[in-house]
């Protein structure tokens, strides 16, 4: 049960809003990552947590494309087929993915590792064709680069990295000149220590995001080619 296993996260999510119902989307993401996809039981749990009629939550699940009420495996590969991606090779990328994985679109691979879907605009049209793998952006994908993409994703399965189909650990990736997929580092710098006089004013340690992000920043400076595992 989420209430037992994710109590702190649930509390942190609820604290952001003046009305608890606003927590529906983040709690569904949390449930989706906890169970792998949104089973009926998971959806009911979210409804119960927020004391909402279950139809209200089922309606939300079916409305938004990033909630999966079917098994999606470890990597959901979403290929933008919109203008302009479709004129710059997206259809060929889709065909290459299906062929290499031996599946049709929307069909989970037998090993449960990959699901390929076509999606609408991903807002990175200047680096078309664009693919997301569990909401990690992968820019400038071509049919020739599909093998390397699949290799890097399989490697990340093997590394024991905690994968989130909901994007909780999302990063952006591109192809290095040498051809391998590499993470694009963000360079925000560390979170500074709060000024002493503000110790009782802005309790940053209570901010749910900051703790997670502190971990991530460490990972970012360590890893270029591989996303280090995070517990976020």
């Amino acid at each position, binding site marked *: 049960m989420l209430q037992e296993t994710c109590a702190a996260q649930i509390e942190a999510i609820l604290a*952001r809003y*003046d*009305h608890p*119902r*606003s*927590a*529906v*989307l*983040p709690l569904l*993401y949390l449930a989706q990552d906890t169970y792998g996809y949104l089973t009926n039981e998971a959806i009911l749990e979210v409804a119960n947590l*927020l004391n909402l009629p279950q139809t*209200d939550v089922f309606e*939300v699940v079916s*409305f*938004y*494309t990033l909630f999966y009420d079917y098994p999606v495996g470890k990597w959901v590969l979403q290929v933008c*087929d*919109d*203008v*302009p991606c*479709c*004129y710059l090779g997206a259809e060929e990328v889709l065909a290459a993915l299906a062929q290499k994985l031996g599946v049709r679109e929307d069909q989970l691979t037998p090993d449960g590792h990959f699901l390929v879907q076509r*999606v*609408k*605009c991903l*807002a*990175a*049209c*200047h*680096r*078309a064709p664009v693919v997301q793998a569990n*909401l990690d*952006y992968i820019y400038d994908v071509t049919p020739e680069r599909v093998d390397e993409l699949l290799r890097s994703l399989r490697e990340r399965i093997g590394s024991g990295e905690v994968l989130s189909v909901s*994007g909780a*650990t*999302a*990063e*952006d990736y591109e192809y290095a000149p040498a051809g391998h997929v590499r993470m694009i580092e*963000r*360079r*925000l*710098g*560390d*979170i*500074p*220590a*709060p000024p002493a006089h*503000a110790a009782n*004013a*802005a*309790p*940053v340690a209570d*901010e749910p*995001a*900051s703790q*997670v*992000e*502190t971990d*991530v*920043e460490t990972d970012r400076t360590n890893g270029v080619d591989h996303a280090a595992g995070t517990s976020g």
Partner: protein
Amino acid sequence: MVLTEHIIQRELDVPNIANFDVYLAHHGYEALRIALSQYQPADLVKMVKDAGLRGRGGAGFPTGVKWGFLPAGVYPRYLLCNCDESEPGTFNNHQIIDLNPHQLIEGIIISSYAIEANKAYIYARGEFGAAARTMEHAIAQAYAAGFLGKNILGSGFDLDMYVHRGAGAYICGEETALMDSLEGKIGQPRLKPPFPAVAGLYGKPTIINNVETLANVPPIVRKGVDWYRSHGTEKSPGTKVFSLCGHVRKPGNYELPFGVSLLDLIYDPAYGDGMIADRAVKIVVPGGASAPWLTGDQLNIPLDYESLASAGSMLGSGGVIVLNDTVSAPHVAYKMDEFFKHESCGKCTPCREGTHWLVRVLHRMNHGHAETDDIPVLHDIYRQMEGNCFCLLGESAVMPIKSALKLFPEEFEGLTHMKG
């Protein structure tokens, strides 16, 4: 014409300005100090109004005027940053967050002070997982430095800021659907009035501004109205980050003063650098997929709200899609309306049914199965949608098919005759 100093894309002037310390060392959060120590909220509303800042999300509505719609004395108020960027060809919000996130955060804090909101939410599209984490990190930095939280910089002003991720629905960029989504519901637009400024999130006064709009606020406060108005045109002051994509050599985000020509954006070596393989421009969609199309002989047009409107199109989000002469107009219309069909929320019949039928007819035409009367059928469908949809999504879906039929009728006739 290259900007000597960027207002939004400051990463081009100050390398690595995404870094908190670098941002601080280059006037970062100076505007916030100025705003909190030298101005009352109403002064800032007036300043933004005087600067002529117009909403960058698509409508171009004057931001200060929007802020002025808040009813006096009604609290709490909310500021929502619309980061649901999802329209084909539009991708500058994404890059602003990646490369200059603190200017956005600072802009949200100043704007929240100006409208007297104590909570701000950044509504990011669900696919912006990494960008959401970037913003959360930047927000944590701002909290730690005392720019967020209680009694910011000793001013007595309190503000909490959160990132709220959607879950895959373009309609949530429509401001009232965004609020419903943030309230935990399906994202469907609300009837207006009441407008969000009067009854918005949880029924409270709410202001919703786009990422790029809010990122303009710190430079206006720090450098003043006159300086801001020295960029751009009289009616469209400032700059615009144009997103350029499609069959150009150098797609990307380019910040230009309003009024630079489409020709320069596409062909200047500093920007688009011309067409791939020097092919001819066939279709330009100048303001995201919602904008009526232009053709290759209309490239001299200045990129500002008024000029594009008088050419029968719109500046919209500033997402410029350039397609060459290898594409078929009926196919482009099909793909674009497929987007709108996919994203239709289903609330109103003209959009739900209209986008469905447009795509169904366009699909068969593009796959060699056109019916003889498909052209009049397409005209009939979009005419029934036009002016009858509940929100702009359905109205936008009219633009691709109407443009294609008007500009390239012979291509549709060709498909009709292909039926064997």
